[in-house]
């Protein structure tokens, strides 16, 4: 066992924390209020290479490991969960499936500009009646000559509208259920590909969540990702990795809320002393810190297993389950420590509490994580 981060990982954490505190934190409340992401932040993150952390140099990535990627998402989410998920959805959901399943041509054409951050990535999986049940997708893809023709609607797509490259899961043969699915790389601007409504959400309000609409959208055959029939496999494999990203996001939200609560408890006075002197709050903060540390170990371990070529589906599910429930619990306590002020938008903890909730839902609800973990136990 060796629990020390490498020199590079430490420097990455310091760098991303400095960037997050200096550039992102001052904008977080306003972006939440306006339900709009400030895309100048994206350009700055692209310049720093935060848009291609775990991809190799040959595809313009930073060539860092998944532990580093998790740390970066954690540090961004510590001040702004919407910024964290913009990077996480782009990297884990949009770029990773191309990195892992794509042909050399697809990687050069799509992955390299995504890693550079000049193109933003997203995954089109969820539909009104399909999400974690990836085999139930109703969007269809029919091969006609050299093109697949896509029809259907995707919902709740993170980085929708602003995204340039979408990995879209569609059914090519209804009779084969999940074995009759395929993944396609679809560019924004392809005729027949438009955007539906923008979702107005409880939390991560600066993150763009849109409907994708495909009406006789013609996608060149060479944009088939992997093989026809692999759509379900690609979707689940992508979600396994995506869960590490969301777990890291949840971890960051929780850490941010604890840091806020600790600082506030030292300056807020009641009964002639800082509220940090009350044992009731000390124990609350001790429990918050302990759960966060446990979450951190699960997240980093899942990332480490991925880096070391070990099966990590169960560990990623555990990390996502525990870190997201930790984030919800910790942010609720943080609001409690702030009292009435915590309930107002004068302080960031109410935003963190709203942001935390989604981590228990997207990329598989907590219930789905338990199904994944149990399936691994009982196989």
């Amino acid at each position: 066992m060796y629990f020390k981060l490498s020199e590079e990982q430490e420097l990455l954490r310091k760098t991303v924390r400095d960037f997050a505190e200096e550039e992102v934190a001052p904008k977080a409340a306003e972006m939440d209020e306006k339900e709009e992401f400030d895309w100048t932040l994206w350009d700055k993150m692209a310049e720093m290479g935060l848009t291609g952390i775990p991809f190799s140099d040959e595809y313009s990535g930073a060539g860092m490991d998944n532990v580093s990627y998790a740390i970066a998402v954690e540090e961004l989410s510590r001040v702004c969960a919407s910024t964290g998920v913009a990077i996480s959805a782009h990297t884990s959901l949009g770029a990773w499936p191309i990195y892992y399943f794509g042909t050399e041509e697809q990687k050069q054409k799509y992955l390299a500009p995504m890693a550079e951050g000049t193109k933003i990535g997203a995954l089109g999986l969820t539909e009104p009646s399909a999400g974690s049940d990836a085999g139930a997708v109703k969007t269809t893809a029919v091969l006609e000559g050299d093109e697949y023709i896509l029809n259907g609607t995707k919902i709740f797509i993170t980085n929708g509208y602003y995204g340039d490259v979408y990995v879209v899961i569609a059914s090519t043969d209804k009779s084969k259920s999940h074995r009759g699915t395929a993944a396609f790389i679809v560019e924004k601007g392809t005729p027949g590909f438009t955007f539906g409504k923008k979702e107005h959400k409880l939390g991560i309000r600066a993150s763009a969540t849109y409907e994708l609409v495909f009406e006789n959208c013609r996608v060149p055959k060479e944009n088939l990702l992997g093989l026809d029939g692999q759509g379900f496999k690609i979707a689940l494999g992508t979600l396994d990795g995506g869960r590490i990203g969301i777990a890291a996001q949840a971890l960051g939200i929780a850490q941010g809320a604890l840091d806020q609560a600790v600082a506030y408890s030292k300056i807020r006075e009641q009964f002639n002393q800082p509220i940090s002197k009350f044992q009731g709050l000390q124990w609350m903060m001790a429990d918050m810190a302990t759960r966060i540390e446990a979450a951190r170990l699960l997240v980093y371990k899942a990332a480490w297993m991925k880096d070391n070529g070990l099966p990590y589906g169960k560990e990623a599910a555990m990390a996502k389950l525990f870190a997201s429930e930790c984030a919800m619990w910790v942010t609720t306590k943080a609001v409690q420590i702030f009292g009435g002020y915590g309930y107002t938008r004068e302080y960031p903890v109410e935003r963190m509490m709203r942001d935390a909730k989604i981590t228990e839902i997207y990329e598989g609800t907590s219930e789905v994580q338990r199904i994944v973990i149990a399936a691994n136990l009982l196989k």
Partner: protein
Amino acid sequence: MKIVVCLKQTFDTEAKIVINADGQIERKGVSLIMNPYDEFAVEEGLKLKGKDGEVTVVTATGPEGQDALRQALAMGADKAILVDPGRADIDEFTTATILAKAIAGLEYDLIIGGFRAIDDGSAQVAGRVAEILGLPVVNVVTKLEVADGKAVATREIEGGSEVIEVPLPAVITAQKGLNEPRYPSMKGIMQAKKKPMQKTTAAELGLDEAALAPKVKALSFTLPSARAAGRLVPGEAPEAARELARLLREEAKII
């Protein structure tokens, strides 16, 4: 252009300063950063070095200083040199003696440093390095242009600014406003570990005890007295403003 940047690792600006039982500033458990003025110096070096140029960063400190050097390498510097003084009681004279000795063995067109460090704030080291090396020095620079073997530097003076021209090589000290330091890039962080970092000691550079003996000695340290609590002036705005003006004039005596 070959540029040498002198840098120092300092306490984090948010670090809580504690005087320990020996009357010294406690260094244990304090997070360290690159002196922010030295970040301006590194950035300026990177901007000026040009295609075939080279930036070498130098520090005179114990092994802990390599974190700041690594950060400079990740920002884009090419080489780093860490010289361990081998003693704790160093002053500005000692530090400058070591840095000048290390730099004397290098090729350089320009030496840049922060105009002061945020910890002891003595603003002496870069000037002393210039003196030892027999170079011109321009302090507190907010704008720098280098061409044709000359540097044109704009520096702050009381009530305005002054533009100075010096022949190269020269020593320039950086003030806030000179530039906006970049964040290390992820690729930069990965490349930093492959870049050369030379670790040496003052003794290995040929500096003996006598050459390094500090000229000044700090006798004691005290913390500033705690800031008094603020005061609220109650009442309706017009009366409160009148009362505030009276307090500022008669009690605080600042207007």
